[in-house]
């Protein structure tokens, strides 16, 4: 029903419009993707989205390496969610091989995962401010973000690519003598949070540029299967940490954050996206605090020796699904292991941006060309996470496959895999 209404809007004005390409290289975009906008004056009446410029074939590479080498690759799917992908991947493999993870390791994974959410959301807020032409807010926000990067470096040794999760546990401990650094950083953020909320949500010029811009209704968010903050900004109470608790989240009550927590009706617009992400920073700080206080003692890995781990994984067979609420939404890794081979027989990654891609269309329609950068940024897209396929023939011509053909192809593939 909703798809029809969108198509109708595009068709109505097609005769009088002109089209403006945005991307694959454009200052509004941090990663390559191509939008072709049909404009009626400054108003957007149609949009065509073409992803596929950052496809690197990581799944294919992973299926030709042993699982521990593939873990390194999973960490490099995305530079910002560099813990989310390994978290989902390790859970998928552990589910497939039936490996237990010690409680302390689960808590440490949670701490690093939530720290990543803090820095990712602040990064997004800064990018959003820049897209609005508000560079002051960008510089101040990124300055604040550095504290979480420093803490991550202190705890893991790296600013990005933390190399913390490994099958059966974590590779490094959060020692007691470093806990005070974490508390210090958390206090720093608690003190600054109200200032951030004032700077973003109580600023007239930010409100003018974001209220009722890129709105996504509750129904459309559900129909288009939006995930993460994009869905929650529309009032959909959807959060993997709440719906299917995993890791340390099972020990606490995580509630999906919607604009209602800020005391406003959800519109699903950019303003609501800011609300949700800023409040989630607060939520993450609380989760990290809980984890630090209740950090269980015990071992870090249930199979501490890597050769033994590899041998266990080689013997394992079965399939597993790993889900994690990444900063951008639900990330899913599917893995199938076969006995006797070290490589994953199948590795499938579904990044949150893939689920949010279709939400862009109703968000763009009816808004102005001036809103393009902030709406594009509002779902916090990550093209390199998402790009799964790019079809070219031997001479380099691109082809596009439509839905029916893709359904047919995937059914064929399923039959082939299932034998």
């Amino acid at each position: 029903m909703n798809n029809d209404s969108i198509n109708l809007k595009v068709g109505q004005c097609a005769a009088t419009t002109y089209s403006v390409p945005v991307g694959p290289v454009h200052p509004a975009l941090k990663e390559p993707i191509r939008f072709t906008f049909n404009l009626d004056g400054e108003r957007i009446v149609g949009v065509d989205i073409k992803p596929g410029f950052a496809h690197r074939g990581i799944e294919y590479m992973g299926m030709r390496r042993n699982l521990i080498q593939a873990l390194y690759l999973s960490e490099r799917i995305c530079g910002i969610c560099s813990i989310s992908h390994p978290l989902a991947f390790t859970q998928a493999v552990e589910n497939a091989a039936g490996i237990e993870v010690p409680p302390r390791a689960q808590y440490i994974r949670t701490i690093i995962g939530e720290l990543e959410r803090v820095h990712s959301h602040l990064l997004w807020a800064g990018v959003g401010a820049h897209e609005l032409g508000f560079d002051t807010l960008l510089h101040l926000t990124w300055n604040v973000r550095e504290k979480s990067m420093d803490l991550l470096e202190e705890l893991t040794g790296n600013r990005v690519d933390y190399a913390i999760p490994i099958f059966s546990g974590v590779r490094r401990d959060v020692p007691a003598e470093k806990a005070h650094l974490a508390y210090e950083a958390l206090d720093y953020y608690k003190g600054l949070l109200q200032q951030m909320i004032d700077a973003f949500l109580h600023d007239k010029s930010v409100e003018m540029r974001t209220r009722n811009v890129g709105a996504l209704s509750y129904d459309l968010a559900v129909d288009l299967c939006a995930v993460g903050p994009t869905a929650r900004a529309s009032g959909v109470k959807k959060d993997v940490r709440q719906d299917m608790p995993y890791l340390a989240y099972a020990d606490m009550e995580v509630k999906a954050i919607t604009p209602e927590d800020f005391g406003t009706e959800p519109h699903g617009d950019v303003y609501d996206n800011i609300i949700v992400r800023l409040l989630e920073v607060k939520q993450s700080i609380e989760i990290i605090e809980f984890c630090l206080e209740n950090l269980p003692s015990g071992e870090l890995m249930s199979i501490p020796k890597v050769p033994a781990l590899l041998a266990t994984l080689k013997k394992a067979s079965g399939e597993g699904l790993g889900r994690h609420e990444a900063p951008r939404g639900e990330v899913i890794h599917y893995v199938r292991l076969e006995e006797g081979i070290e490589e994953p027989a199948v590795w499938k990654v579904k990044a949150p941006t893939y689920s949010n891609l279709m939400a862009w269309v109703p968000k763009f329609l009816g808004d102005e060309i001036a809103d393009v950068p902030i709406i594009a940024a509002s779902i916090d897209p990550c093209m390199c996470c998402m790009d799964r396929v790019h079809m070219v023939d031997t001479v380099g011509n691109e082809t596009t496959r439509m839905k029916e053909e893709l359904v047919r192809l995937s059914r064929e593939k399923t039959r082939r895999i299932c034998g």
Partner: protein
Amino acid sequence: MSATLLNAVWQGIIILVGGTFLGMVYKGLDRKLAAQMQGRIGPPLRQPFFDVVKLMVKENIVPDHAVAWLYNLMPLVSLAAVGTLLFYVPLGGFEPLLHGYGDLILVLYLLAVPSIAMVLGGFAAGSPFASVGAQRELVMMMAYEFPLAITLLSLGWYLSAAMPGVHVFSLSVLAANPLWGLVGPLGFIGLLLLFCALMIVTPAELAKIPFDIPEAETEIAGGILAEYSGRNMAMFYLADAIKMVVMGSLTVALFFPYGLSGLLGVAGAWGSVIDVIFYLVKVFVVIFFAVIVVRVAFARLKIGQAVRLFWLPITGISLLGMLLLTLDRIV
């Protein structure tokens, strides 16, 4: 006769070079101070000079779809117009070089020329981003020209009513007879309102945040300037720098033409030096509050929001200012 002409030519060259230099210094200050306010280190003060030198040696690319002669001509037109403006605006407390040959109305028209040149250059570039930017620039001009005109004309009208017989639209006469001393309380409020209107028009005239809508880097990739490079870009860059000095000097001449030399009792050459320094400080203060602070404190507006802002509140403020000045004269 030829000696006077030669003298004028020399003065003209000094004004052009000095005005450009000043504009570049203010541009450097603008970038440095804005950076400091944003928690950055910022570029060195000399950066605008480096930028121009670099642009001058860079390749001057003309897009395939561009109307080449129009595209190449417009940066020149823009630079020539702001250069001419330097001869009509009182700089450093001195009378403008061409005083008596043109007045405030001419300044108003000359101020519009760089914008029109950018619009034509944008359309001539043949790129969709430049076209969108050019359309936006046209709309912006329609939005801010009205309050600007009301402000300047009200001041001239008041002077004509207060001092019959003088050449009221001459900037040197306006600068010599500051209105603050002539008006009553109603007129004082009116003048304040007109001053506010001019301060808000200034960033729009200079296309700075929140009114850099025609250039909007993140939206339309530099808009009007998207296709410009090399020498052409350098000319627009210089024109922008000079326009900043012109707008600052115009505000100073209309509202703060006072000098310090009389107050301190210093006459002669030292008096002039003190006045020039005081003038530079005044222009800086105007630029600081009208451009630097504003561009740090706000997000970019959308074109519809900017037009609404100028047509309703700002035009309202300037009309109210005009009304109060009129009442002050009549009552």
